[in-house]
């Protein structure tokens, strides 16, 4: 059972960067007016950012990291570890983290590696970087988390394209003796790995010329095997049953209740799903921030993006107790709780 805690680290800052290019679901061609209205109300996504082809997730991470390092006044030579959590790599190989180490001007003594996770990635990433810093003597680390999810969504697929948005974030973590602990509970159900999948392009189904052939699966859903395929109903059921149960169990293990947390920040999956989870756990609406309407489902980046977008003024000046949960592709999910106390948090950057 992957329930554990880490000690002696604190979040020093969080920053986010999004593409400047904003698109609106009101302009989306494959839904009629009635469906658009319903989508925006029920699924909760009105606008989102769509990166041009020239702008990768690592470009967004780079911009956010430069800004955060400068505002923290960190010396780059002090940064011991860089982790890039994403499913939007620059290349099949090498690891994107290596490219970011060089581009950010971090020393060769920095350890850098990628973690290929999506919706649960922020919770996983925090658990990995905090475990490293709390047990090894490393002092400072950067956790770069985000995705350009729209690049693999077919514009002609109304079951996927309207949902997602592109965004990236960076969280700076440092060793601090006697800092409040982080608690985590992490889960996996690979039997449902086909629920969210890009079927071709990896080793199981190498890309061939046929991989580019688009097929109309049903009305308004046209895609190729190189596009993201979503089984929305199955993911929905997983999210409203398994996820709240895991969170309830986490709260029992940590002997906490809803009122112990200032905020519960969920992966921004879709509004109906997230509200179903919120109601089951009996969190008050004022405890649960959303960035979904402005930025869509931003995959691995959604939790830190929501913290920056919705809680920025508070986290800069207050001590807050947060519960977070990420869930989706894998299927993989996780829950974590921690204290965030007067951290550095620049405004969201918009990158062209």
């Amino acid at each position, binding site marked *: 059972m992957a329930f554990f805690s880490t000690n002696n680290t604190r979040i020093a800052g969080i920053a986010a960067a999004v593409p400047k290019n904003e698109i609106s679901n009101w302009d989306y061609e494959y839904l009629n007016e009635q469906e658009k209205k319903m989508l925006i109300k029920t699924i909760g996504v009105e606008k989102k950012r769509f990166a041009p082809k020239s702008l990768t997730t690592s470009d967004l991470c780079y911009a956010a990291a430069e800004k955060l390092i400068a505002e923290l006044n960190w010396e780059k030579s002090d940064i011991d570890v860089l982790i890039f959590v994403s499913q939007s790599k620059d290349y099949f190989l090498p690891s994107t983290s290596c490219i970011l180490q060089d581009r950010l001007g971090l020393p060769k003594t920095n350890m850098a590696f990628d973690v290929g996770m999506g919706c649960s990635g922020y919770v996983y990433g925090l658990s990995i970087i905090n475990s490293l810093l709390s047990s090894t003597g490393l002092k400072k680390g950067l956790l770069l988390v985000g995705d350009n999810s729209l690049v693999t969504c077919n514009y002609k697929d109304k079951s996927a394209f309207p949902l997602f948005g592109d965004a990236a974030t960076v969280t700076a973590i440092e060793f601090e003796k006697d800092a409040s602990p982080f608690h985590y509970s992490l889960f996996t159900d690979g039997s449902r790995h086909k629920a969210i999948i890009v079927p071709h392009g990896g080793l199981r189904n190498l890309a061939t010329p046929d991989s580019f052939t688009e097929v109309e699966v049903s009305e308004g859903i046209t895609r190729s095997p190189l596009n993201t395929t979503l089984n929305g*109903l199955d993911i929905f*059921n997983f999210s*409203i049953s398994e996820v709240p149960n895991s969170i309830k169990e986490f709260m029992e293990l940590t002997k906490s209740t809803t009122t112990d947390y200032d905020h519960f920040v969920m992966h921004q999956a879709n509004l109906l799903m997230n509200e*179903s989870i919120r*109601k089951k756990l009996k969190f008050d609406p004022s405890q649960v921030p959303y960035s979904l309407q402005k930025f869509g489902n931003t995959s691995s980046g959604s939790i830190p993006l929501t913290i920056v977008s919705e809680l920025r003024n508070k986290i800069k000046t207050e001590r807050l107790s947060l519960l977070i949960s990420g869930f989706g592709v894998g299927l993989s999910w996780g829950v974590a709780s921690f204290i965030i106390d007067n951290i550095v948090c620049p405004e969201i950057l918009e990158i062209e």
Partner: protein
Amino acid sequence: MDINDLIEKLSTEFEMNVQEKLTPATSFRGMKEWSSMHALIIIALVDAEYEVTITGNDLVQMNTVQDLYDLIMSRKK
């Protein structure tokens, strides 16, 4: 609960106006505004109100409001 209770809740969630009334015989996919989002609303509603899980496959196989009601009753604890 009876089927009218289910119809009332579905109508509220679907935000249907009084002209287009749901009945036990209404076919979901026959509704002129039917979309996959209605399917999500049904799943969320049935889960929250009756603590019954409806899968994507169940929805493919069911047709009418009566079918949904029967399925809920057969699974309700």
